[in-house]
């Protein structure tokens, strides 16, 4: 299912009735940070997969920009290595690679060197002529966020940022990676910088979670079925639990993680996206703004935390040294790049309220962390228990409430926990799980999140990208917590054993309400 509306319906009569009536206009994707890890692991393999599975037009062109003195050939070789190592369709298909690689170019430049942008503009003009890309340019900033403003400015100075592209023909779009700022103030400043060159509808803030099939399936499950939406509110839902757990530590990302922590790394973006998709009202259509309007309404309905509430409704923790799977693992403070006295959280649990008609009184519990028991991302809708009068004396106090769980990863799917009678003379009830698996269970590998998102950007469809007000509202919420935590430096930062579900305080947070975390 195409979630987003066809934003570029073709005038071509041969496109009528085709599964995808949307067609990608010829364009150049300029990747800043072309020799970096993201380009190597994700972007080039994703673009190759799109070429192999053919949504890309023959004119599609990539220009890698970075500081290293690469030739076009060296960049192509790097791309080939990336694809052979990381593409879900590896090894490379040589015939397809042959034509795809002819569209790969490299431009050496410092990100803050004005003359480099002038050279880039000339190269793009040349490619527009030679490859028929029509002045359509996408600028992907796979760089540290500190370069976003500079790159935007210099693209603008080189005449590459205008809505209408070069000479009034074509279009320009810019994709920026998370984190978009590190708090509300910096996010607003960053946006102001970008807005000097690009209008909001040219800016695509990527959160790769939104490109995941199963995240998009949340909308399909809710709005494509008649049976769920009528019970998707405070009358039937007891609580919602969102878990994003990783079993690995920070590994080589200690430097980055020290600045981010679990709150900025996971909660502000991925978890807020899951929360808003689960809680939003039905949009009037699946157009970019209609969906994002509804998501923003959810964020606005989350009341800001008062200082006293932060102590009660938030828990943070940090993994200590220990053992996982029989192997000794370092504690967070012993990880490379991490301050030995670090107070950065590697675990967060939160209780949020959404004060609107649908969700009043329904708590949303969020937890995320590193070095937890297993890697799992799940949204669980826990329904209210029915009165069990009928089944008194049958051990109904041990009955599980009905739970609809949406597993994002791994084993993407949906399962429904419900009660059934155990066959026999006695009235005995047992919980049974009805599972439905997506993803690998379909026998075909779903496209990578980046494939979907890059394609959507080429199509000019920003539904699955984060709008600035979404970003700002979620930072507002996160900032309140972060500020409270930083003001009370002495506040507890419990250490937890690697391989567990985090600090005991997280259990206490939910148990105070007479509930428990789902055992995953």
């Amino acid at each position, binding site marked *: 299912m195409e979630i987003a509306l066809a934003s570029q319906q073709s005038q*071509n*009569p*041969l496109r009528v009735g085709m599964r995808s009536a949307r*067609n990608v206009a010829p364009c150049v994707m300029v990747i800043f940070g072309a020799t970096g890890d993201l380009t190597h692991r994700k972007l080039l393999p994703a673009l190759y997969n799109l070429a192999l599975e053919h949504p890309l037009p023959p004119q599609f062109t990539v220009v890698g920009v970075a500081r290293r003195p690469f030739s076009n050939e060296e960049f192509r070789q790097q791309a080939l290595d990336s694809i052979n190592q990381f593409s879900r369709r590896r090894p490379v298909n040589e*015939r397809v690679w042959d*034509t795809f690689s*002819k569209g790969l170019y490299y431009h050496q430049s410092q990100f803050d060197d004005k003359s480099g942008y002038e050279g880039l503009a000339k190269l793009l003009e040349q490619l527009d002529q030679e490859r028929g890309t*029509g002045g359509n340019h996408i600028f992907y900033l796979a760089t540290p966020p500190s370069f976003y403003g500079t790159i935007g400015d210099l693209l603008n100075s080189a005449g590459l940022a205008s809505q209408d592209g070069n000479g009034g023909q074509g279009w320009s779009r810019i994709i920026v990676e998370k984190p978009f700022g590190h708090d509300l103030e910096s996010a607003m400043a960053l946006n102001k910088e970008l807005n000097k060159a690009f209008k909001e509808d040219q800016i695509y803030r990527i959160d790769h979670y939104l490109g995941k099939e199963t995240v998009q399936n949340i909308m399909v499950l809710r709005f494509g079925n008649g049976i769920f939406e009528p019970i998707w509110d405070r009358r039937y839902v007891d609580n919602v639990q969102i878990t994003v757990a990783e079993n690995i530590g920070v590994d080589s990302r200690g430097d980055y993680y020290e600045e981010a922590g679990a709150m900025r790394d996971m909660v502000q973006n991925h978890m807020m996206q899951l929360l808003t998709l689960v809680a939003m009202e039905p949009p009037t259509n699946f157009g970019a703004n209609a969906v994002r309007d509804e998501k923003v309404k959810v964020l606005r309905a989350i009341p800001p935390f008062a200082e006293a509430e932060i102590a009660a409704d938030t828990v943070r923790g940090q993994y200590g040294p220990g053992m996982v799977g029989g192997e000794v693992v370092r504690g967070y403070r012993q990880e490379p790049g991490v301050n030995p006295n670090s107070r950065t959280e590697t675990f967060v649990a939160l209780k949020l309220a959404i004060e609107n008609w649908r969700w009043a009184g329904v708590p949303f519990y969020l937890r995320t962390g590193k070095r937890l028991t297993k890697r799992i991302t799940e949204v669980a809708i826990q329904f209210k228990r029915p009165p069990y009068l009928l089944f008194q004396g049958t051990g109904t106090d041990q009955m599980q409430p009905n739970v609809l769980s949406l597993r994002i990863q791994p084993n993407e799917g949906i399962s429904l926990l419900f009660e059934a009678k155990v066959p026999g003379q006695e009235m005995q009830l047992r919980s049974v799980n009805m*599972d439905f698996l997506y993803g690998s*269970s379909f026998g075909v590998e779903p496209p990578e999140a980046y494939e979907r998102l890059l394609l959507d950007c080429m199509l000019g469809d920003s539904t699955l990208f984060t709008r600035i007000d979404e970003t700002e509202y979620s930072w507002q919420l996160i900032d309140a917590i972060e500020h409270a935590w930083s003001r009370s430096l002495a506040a507890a930062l419990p250490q937890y054993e690697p391989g567990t579900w985090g600090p005991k305080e997280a259990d206490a947070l939910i148990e105070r309400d007479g509930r428990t975390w789902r055992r995953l």
Partner: protein
Amino acid sequence: MTQVQDPFATMRPVELGKVEQELDNMWRDANAHLAATGAPAVSRNSVLTLVLYTTSRTYAGHLLEVVHTLSSQHPSRAVIVAADPKDEGDEIQAQIATFVNTDTNSYGEDIVLTAQSNAIKHLPGVVLPLIVSGLPAFLWWSGEPPWGSEMLESLIDGSDRLIVDIGEMTHIERSLGALENLMLRKAARCAISDTSWTAQAPWRDLVAQFFDSPAVLPYLSAAERVSVDFAAGEEDAQENSGQAYLFAGWLASRLGWKTQQTHARSMDANRQHTLRDTNGRAILLEVNPRYGVNQRNWWEPDIYATTFNAGQDAPPWVRPGALMSIHITARLEGKRATFTVAREQDLAHATTLCHIPDIAVPSQTIHLDSVGEREPISEQLRSLGHDSVYEEALTAAAQFVGTGKIR
């Protein structure tokens, strides 16, 4: 003498009247076994019933393998009918099996019905009760259907979709006409689709892509000549131009081209048709066989293994009558442009080439398997409704070969 292995040897023979009951028992046994091993129970759910009709028990075995590969996407009840008119007798025998693969989460249930010649006419009374109530029913007909037979009509009436393959049919003039006739008569209750049509999707996409650019689009209505080449075997063997005509029918129906005149050098090959667009402008359509191309049915086992084991040194092959090249010539304001999609020698790739004055369009090579040329059946099971674009293409194709009905 080579012993031919019965593909259904492990299935449980049951009386026709006890198929449902025995299937219930088998699921119960399967779940009891899983429970004993500590594995979670599997739910017996289906999203559709797939009735598969073939005249050969051996083919039925091959096709069943294909059905199993679909089961994780389309958990289904498969009713496989092997009705060999040469197998004399009055009997219909039933065999059943359930299967669960917890690794791939695929599961389903199979019912094989083997009908002897005199019992074939009674098949609807056996097959239709086995269709799961309330779920879509697909009738997949392998080979040429017995046009006009009561048995065919009854099975179609009990189905939501009839899936055929024009590439498996033997007399294209008759088949296209009969298929169109069926489509018109059964429109209210059953949609018709064709795995060859699905397999052509990448070709349609590549040709459409030429004209996506607003600068190139005007050339589409200035086409002068269209050549469609299709795979043929040896020169004296029977050819199957059905896919070529279906493709030409698609172009014509999208662009409003109507048949005016046909110049046939033989019954099934090297045909030229003069078409007229809505302004009365003439377009020459040529349908040509490309002899000596290795052809096989896509679902045959050795081919199927090749399909899913890319990189093996198996000889290249295509579906019978598969498209080999499309060539369009257009002239706009005196400027001549050509648009070509051609299958490569390895038969697995297609390359585009176009020459348009003052417009640069790089060549592009695609891997046809990667864009769905060889896995058409799964796609067929995804949709239920009518595909009006296919239906209009079929009507146009039937008109090209001179047997179509004028709507």
